[in-house]
């Protein structure tokens, strides 16, 4: 009884949303010279601003370039950027504002997974196309949403075996105590075991922990060959500093899925960051012409910009992927753009060729493995066109177009 009730509830909810949609678009009067409206929700103040501010520059740069080249479909783009102030409630508020008041044609944004999950239902409900341009734990399966950042199968899978090869078979995992850290720790464990290694312990840390003394003692007692870190945020940078201060830096190497995403290598002392391994979809140090051009343009326009990481590059590429979709569709109608994006759109951006995977709405993109040397990332290996195989194991939007949830991928370690 309950089950049939609930499914009935679901269908009526979808139906009511469908009824609401035409009402919205009829109220929307547009002429061809009207700008196409691009919404953006990123944190420019508060704890997550260190990531958000450079992403905003990528957004502004991309919009300016597209407008300089004549806009899309002969119409200019207009950016609606709101500062979400590292506050989830403001994400929901501004999402409603973008969907209902500004009536934007697409939204790019969200940084933490929590922010994405708070606004995704709003965009589903009010039928606004949504791009999430940040690396995350994987599993989002929603026809209205495109995720252009890397997922663990694209980076952790490469990082763990490489770091094991350089160190040994016993790892100690440190991760931030929330969904990203917990899921990433599971992937790390899986790839350790797949490669014949062993995980001695997995420790989680709330985001406001600053004293890692007890943890460093625990690690020393466990005697691992390798530290795998998914620590997040300014407070957790303390770990690397206290680790170095205890003189452990030269004894046990560190590989991280998060270190360097903001600009850690240049804010901590060279001794602290030296030799840390990382694997991302983009590094500022990449020598390709597209990458150099991108870095030059941003640094010229914003000389203060700290570091251009995957977050910034994926934001820029996400905007261009959407623009390619609009061009191919010849329309800004949401469904037409989605169908165009599902036809195998690709864009050659700073990180190389980025291709949208129609099944998962994620990207097939290059991954780069690098090591910090003298405060810079030294790119050691390039993996071409890595598919998002983690999300692909649970999600097929071509077969199930009505799906709209984030799966927790069952990781068989």
């Amino acid at each position, binding site marked *: 009884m*309950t089950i049939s*009730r*609930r499914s*009935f*509830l679901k269908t*009526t*909810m979808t139906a*009511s949303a469908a009824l609401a949609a035409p009402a919205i678009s009829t109220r929307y009067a547009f002429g061809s010279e009207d700008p196409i409206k691009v919404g953006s929700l990123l944190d*420019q*103040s*508060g704890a997550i601003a260190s990531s958000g501010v450079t992403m905003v520059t990528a957004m502004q740069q991309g919009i300016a370039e597209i407008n300089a080249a004549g806009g899309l479909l002969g119409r200019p783009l207009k950016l609606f*950027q*709101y*500062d*979400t*102030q590292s*506050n*989830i*409630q*403001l994400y*929901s*508020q*501004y999402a*409603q*504002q973008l*969907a*209902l*008041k500004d009536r934007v044609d697409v939204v790019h944004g969200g940084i*933490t*997974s*929590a922010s994405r*999950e*708070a606004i*995704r*239902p709003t965009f589903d409900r009010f039928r606004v196309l949504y791009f999430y341009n940040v690396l995350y734990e994987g599993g989002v399966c929603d026809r209205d949403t495109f995720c252009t950042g890397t997922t663990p199968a694209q980076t952790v899978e490469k990082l763990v075996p490489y770091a094991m090869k350089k160190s040994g078979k016993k790892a100690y995992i440190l991760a931030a*105590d*929330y*969904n990203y850290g*917990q899921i990433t720790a599971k992937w790390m464990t899986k790839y350790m075991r797949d490669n014949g290694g062993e995980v001695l312990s997995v420790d*989680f840390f*709330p985001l406001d922990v600053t004293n890692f003394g007890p943890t460093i003692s625990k690690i020393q007692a466990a005697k691992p060959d390798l530290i795998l870190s998914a620590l997040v945020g300014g407070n957790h940078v303390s770990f690397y500093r206290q680790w170095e201060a205890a003189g452990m830096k030269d004894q046990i190497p560190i590989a991280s899925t998060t270190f360097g995403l903001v600009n850690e290598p240049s804010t901590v002392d060279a001794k602290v960051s030296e030799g840390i391994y990382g694997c991302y979809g983009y590094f500022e140090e990449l020598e390709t012409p597209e990458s150099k051009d991108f870095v030059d343009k941003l640094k010229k326009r914003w000389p203060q910009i700290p570091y251009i990481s995957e977050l910034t590059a994926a934001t820029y590429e996400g905007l261009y992927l959407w623009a390619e979709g609009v061009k191919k569709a010849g329309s800004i109608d949401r469904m037409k753009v989605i169908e165009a994006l599902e036809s195998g759109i690709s864009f050659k951006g700073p990180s190389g060729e980025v291709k949208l995977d129609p099944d998962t709405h994620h990207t097939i993109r290059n991954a780069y493995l690098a090591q910090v040397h003298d405060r810079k990332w030294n790119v050691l290996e390039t993996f071409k066109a890595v598919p998002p195989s983690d999300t692909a194991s649970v999600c097929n939007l071509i077969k199930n177009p009505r799906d709209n*949830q*984030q799966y*927790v991928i069952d990781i068989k370690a």
Partner: protein
Amino acid sequence: MSASVKLSLQVVAILVACVAVAVMPVAVDLFQLMQFTLFASMAVLALSLGFIWGFGGILCFGQTAFFGLGAYAYAVAAINFGDSTPAILLAIIVPALFALALGYFVFYGRISDVYLGVITLTVTLILFNVFNSMAGDAYKIGTARLGGFNGMPAVPTFNMPFDPSSVLFPEQSWYVTGGALIAIYIGLRLILRSPFGRVAIAVRENETRASLLGYDPRAIKLGVFVLGGAIAGFGGALYVNWGAFVGPTIFSLSLSAEIIIWICIGGLGTLIGPIVGCFIIEYLISQIGSQQSFNSNLVLGAILIVFVLLLPKGLVPTIRLLLEGAGRLATKGRGQAPNAAPDLSAGQPVGAE
């Protein structure tokens, strides 16, 4: 002002508010309506603290604990039952029981003023830590995953009582939220006129004297506290109904501080003040994020400081004083000069002196 004039003014104000709620969906667009729905749900929270602090003399730094528990209770129940009716009831009962336990612990331990504030703040921080870390698959209640830091997305919103098939439209949600706010306001006004309310105020004014008159201040305070917890919990359910989402940041220090700010700005010791303060501050915060020239923290911080220095009593009491002053020039001059001596007149309860 004579009591009858005051009463009739209040009745008029309530009638105006009812009319405003009724015509709002016609007057503003959908986005603004949803924004007002949010503000009204948070105003319920403001009202709950305004009541226990302004009339019960209980300075609770962690009112958001009950708000958050109500929100989580609603979300878990709504996902499990698929019907919002029992979920709303649970969102009131669970925080009320929690307030009963916590209140028994503190009031019967004779803990008062700033120590009470610290205990409630600490409880909120514990809840924040605990809910933050419940991200694994193991943390499930029935079919509802608590989701840790990411929170619980896509929570079913309100439906008609006992009829899960008819989900409320945004307009109907507004009627429910705005209506609930007015109903709670009237309810609290009536309670304050009842014997219980009068005793509560007496306890606030002088605990010893009240107990010498034969009342048990602990029981009275506990009653006020539980009522406040229940109202805050209901506010939590309204909040989830607005955003279809709840996450542990609902227990964060910044929201706890925000509630206190609403009340200080609106005016402590009034019921309308917290509502006014909540609407103003929440509106300001959302406006600040739309501008790109100044850092948002900078603007909000400057506004708060200016408020404290220029309007130490809060908006509503200041306006009331100005009105009264205009009527009677002979009123005692309570200057607005910032360095005027702190005036702890009878109507102004003090948290922790």
